[in-house]
Every structure is written in structure tokens, then in C-alpha cells.
């Protein structure tokens, strides 16, 4: 049984088809990577899953239940967490409060239970020392960590990571990958959009390559990366 599936999802902005008949299933606890050139419709795909956009056609299913008509808030409460490509912290709240909001609302935790859960996540994402710092003043790496930490505080069963390793140094990236691996090891399903391929392939067990809103190829990371089509379109290498 799939925890999350897209069935024939399509979305157009005017004449531009950004998502074109995309279908896939995500097994519980699976880690799925999504690659594709800029403008291939990766982030739009996430917005369709989280409910920030409604598909023109097709369905989004969570636990075999049709959630296409549900709001982002309802989907978050049902267990879909996300991080944004461009970090979107609550600037005037502290790092801890950023997580507290997520835990109290999306995570459905009580005022008594939430603080310990938030502190635990801060510890795991390396943000403990910054707990009482305003989120607006954080540098990029910590903003990325906060995106991940806040998404975790909603206690997701599926977490969507949008280019979370982009712009980080190699050392920072290694830390982040270790954190994501640990989250995956606990049974949280992951869908990860990423251009930093070595980071991505060290976690995911399956890759989907998108181009012009369509699924170009799906398979193990080795299969997909070896495909001449993917190399030509995504990496710009002449086959």
C-alpha cells in the first residue's frame, strides 16, 4: 500500500504545462529523489502534494484517501511536512518558537508535550544553541536547518525536502545528509528534490527524472543516472 500517490496530476499556468500527467507511488518509509533541469516542474509538483496548488486534473492520495480537495493545513495535520526551496522562517519569532508553532498546530501536540519534542528536534538538527535567537537573523545553513527542523516539528509521515542541500559547503552538506539519513532510518518517508546529486543518491533508493513537467524516467539512482536521455537533458552532456 502506498502512503502517498499522485494519479495523473496535471497543472498549467496559462499555456505552459508545468506538470503533465505525472503519476507515482511512494511506499511507507521510502526515500524518493526527484531530479530535473530548472523549470522542469519539480517545485510545482511539491505544491500540488502540499495543497498550495490544486491540480487541473488528476488526484493526490494519502493512505489511499483522496486529499485533492484538502487545504495545506489539513494535509499538514494528516502528516505531510515540507521544507521550502527558499527558506521561509517566521522572522520575528525565535528558532524555538518557529518549531513550537509547527508542533502545536500541524503536529497536534499539547502545550505540555510540544516543548520537549521541539528541543529534541533542535538537538538533532544542530540548532540547540540558537533556540532563543530570532529566526530572521540566521545565516543560510541555519535557515536550511530550520526549514528541516520546522517541518519535522509537524511530525510528518512524509517529508518533502526542496533543494535543502543547495548552496551549502561540502562539510555542511555531510552534516545535513547525516541528519536526513537519521530521519529516514526512523521510518519517515522522504521525497527530496535536489541538484546536489551525490548528497541525494547517498540517501534515496529511487529516482524520478522530470523534464517539461513529464516523468522522463523512474528507477534506481544507478539506472536513472546511466540513462543517456537523462544525461543529455539533465546534465547537458551529448550522448
Amino acid at each position: 500500500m502506498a502512503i502517498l500517490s499522485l494519479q495523473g496530476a496535471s497543472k498549467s499556468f496559462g499555456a505552459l504545462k508545468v506538470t503533465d500527467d505525472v503519476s507515482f507511488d511512494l511506499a511507507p518509509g521510502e526515500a524518493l529523489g526527484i531530479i530535473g533541469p530548472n523549470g522542469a516542474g519539480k517545485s510545482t509538483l511539491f505544491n500540488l502534494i502540499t495543497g498550495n496548488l490544486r491540480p487541473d486534473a488528476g488526484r493526490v492520495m494519502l493512505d489511499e484517501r483522496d486529499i485533492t480537495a484538502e487545504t495545506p493545513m489539513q494535509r499538514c495535520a494528516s502528516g505531510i511536512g515540507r521544507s521550502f526551496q527558499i527558506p521561509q522562517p517566521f522572522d520575528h519569532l525565535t528558532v524555538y518558537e518557529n518549531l513550537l508553532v509547527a508542533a502545536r498546530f500541524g503536529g497536534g501536540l499539547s502545550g505540555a508535550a510540544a516543548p520537549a519534542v521541539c528541543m529534541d528536534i533542535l538537538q538533532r538538527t544542530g540548532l540547540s544553541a540558537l533556540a532563543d535567537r530570532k529566526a530572521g537573523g540566521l545565516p543560510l545553513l541555519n535557515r536550511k536547518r530550520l526549514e528541516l527542523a520546522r517541518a519535522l516539528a509537524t511530525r510528518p509521515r512524509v517529508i518533502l525536502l526542496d533543494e535543502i542541500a543547495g548552496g551549502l559547503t561540502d562539510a555542511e552538506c555531510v552534516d545535513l545528509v547525516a541528519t536526513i539519513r537519521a530521519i529516514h532510518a526512523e521510518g519517515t518517508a522522504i521525497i527530496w528534490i535536489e541538484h546536489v546529486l551525490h548528497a541525494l543518491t547517498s540517501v534515496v533508493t529511487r529516482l524520478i527524472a522530470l523534464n517539461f513537467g513529464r516523468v522522463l524516467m523512474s528507477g534506481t539512482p544507478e539506472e536513472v543516472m546511466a540513462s543517456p536521455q537523462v544525461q543529455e537533458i539533465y546534465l547537458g552532456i551529448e550522448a
Partner: protein
Amino acid sequence: MRTLVTLAIGLVLLTAMALVPVLGPRILVQDLFKVLCLLVLALNWNLLAGFAGLVSVGQQAFVGVGAYVMFATTILWGMDPLAGVLIGGVVAMALSVPVAFFAFRLNGAYFAIGTWAVADIARLSFGQWRALGGGTGTALPRDATREMLGVGAVRDLLGVSPAAAIDAVTYWLALALAAVMLLACWLFLRSRMGLGLQAVRDNPVAAQSVGVDPTRLKALVFLLTAFATGLCGALLFIQTGRITPDAAFSVIDWTAFVIFIVVIGGIGTLPGPIVGVLVFYALQQLLADYGTVYLIALGLIGIAIMLFARRGLWGGLIHRIGYDPLPLGHAAPRPPHPTQEERP
């Protein structure tokens, strides 16, 4: 600890202010009554605009409705004016439901204009109410306020004239309303919903993605502030004793001055409106004799603050000294034995 200090100072100030009708001159009671009512309106507008992002220019609609309903219950149905205050608040809140239904379709400046239009429609509509004097308005019967709940007791207790006793009762009610409002704002903003509201203010899209419903929270704030604004409006016009549509639905008195107070004090901070109302009162005392020049001066000061001290007087002060006596934040719980690494 910090909360306890603030609470203690607050209680001392509250007691001192409660003694004003006993010890102070009547003119001071009347002036402070207006100040307290403006404070209540400012706390409400601050909650709306400073925390929920709802920049309404139509709050006078709820002041006017509260006041008119209080007049109607007193004059037409012979009820105690204080019961009318409560009903005024409830009717104002009921009216805010259809207003929200339409106004929430608008954003930013459009929302501001929309609420202003609603308030003007209300002003014109209540001007048609013949039984309450139509466009020229009407006065509360003297007996109604003299027999108001508590007035007799205050007369006996303080040995003052009926008019002074009415002033004292309305003053104490305004003081209680302001104190309750301040406490309620603080509790609300520190609650789960208040935290959600501050998340929405910072980033509505991200707030949705962590499960916060922006529309629901904003609607809740809109309803609750309409209730408190209606109560305050009704109370204001018990003391005034006379009502006209233009006075009850005055955009200058009940919205423009209120915006000025919140902006100079510090929008989005809880003590901001208190500082703002004190500055406003001082300016009023200094400049009241100069007529139009007074309004021009207020406008210039407002613009200067917006340009050069965007956080307002209070907001700028706590930013500089780094101590907030009414903190809205949630400090992260510390482990009993923090490790070296975890110390900030």
C-alpha cells in the same frame, strides 16, 4: 519573575487609577475616562493591524453600532444602560460576521477602504433611525443614567452629585475594560492561537504549511475586537449622554486618532498603545487651544514617527534597552545541566 514584577507594577497603577474618582477633581475623571476608552480602542486596533495584519479603517462602525444599540435598549426598551453596553458589544460582534464575509475577500489597502465603506454605510443607515432622532440624534433620558446600576451606591458612598457619580461609574468601567483588555491581549498573544497569529503575520504561506489556518485566526480576531470595540463605544456614549450618527461613526475620533496612538506608541507591541495614548493625551492638553493647527501637528508627528522611528516610541525603546516588561515570546526550556556547547 519578570511577569510577576510587571503584574505587581500593574496592580499598583491600577489601584492608583481606581482612586482618581475618590480623590481627584471631576475634570480629571472625565479626561482619564476618554483616555482609557481610547486605550481600549487602541489595544483592539493594535491586535487587528499589528498582529493580525488587518488594517481596518472602519472600526468606528463597531463603536457607533455599540453606542446606538445601547441608546435603543435604554430609550426604546427601557433597559439599564449597562445592560445596553453588553448588548451593544454582542450586536457589534454579530455585525462583524457579515462584514468579515465581504471584507476578507479584500487584501491590504482594499481591505482598509472596504471597512471604511462599511462604516459609512452604517453611519448613513443609523441616521435613518427616526426613533433615535435620525440625522440629528438624540439624548439619553436623565433618569436612565441616574438610575443606572451602581450610581446610587456611589452617590451614597462618596457623597457626590448624581452627575459626578455617573462619571465615576463609567470611569471605573472603562478602567476595568482597559485592564481586562490588556490582560486578555497578553494571554491571547501568548496562547497557541497567538503564536499562530504571529507566524501568519511573518509568513502566511509557511504558516499554512505548518498547519496554521490564517483565515480562521484573522476572523477570530476580527470578531473579538468588534465585540470589545462595541462595548467601548456604548460606554463612551453613556458618559457623553448624547448621540448623533456623525459623532458615533466618526472616522477621525474612533479610527484616525486610534491609528495615531498605536503608530506613535509602537504597532505590534503590547505596551505600545499605552505609551501612545499618554503621548496623545499630553499633546491634546498642550495643543487643544490651537484648533486646526492641532490636527496638523498630530499628522506631522505621526509622519515623522513613521519615517524616523518605525517601531514607534515603545518599540524603539525596548529595541534599544533589550528589556521587554510584557514579553510575548516563549523561551526555550533549558535542560537542568546545560552542557558547555549548549550555552548561547
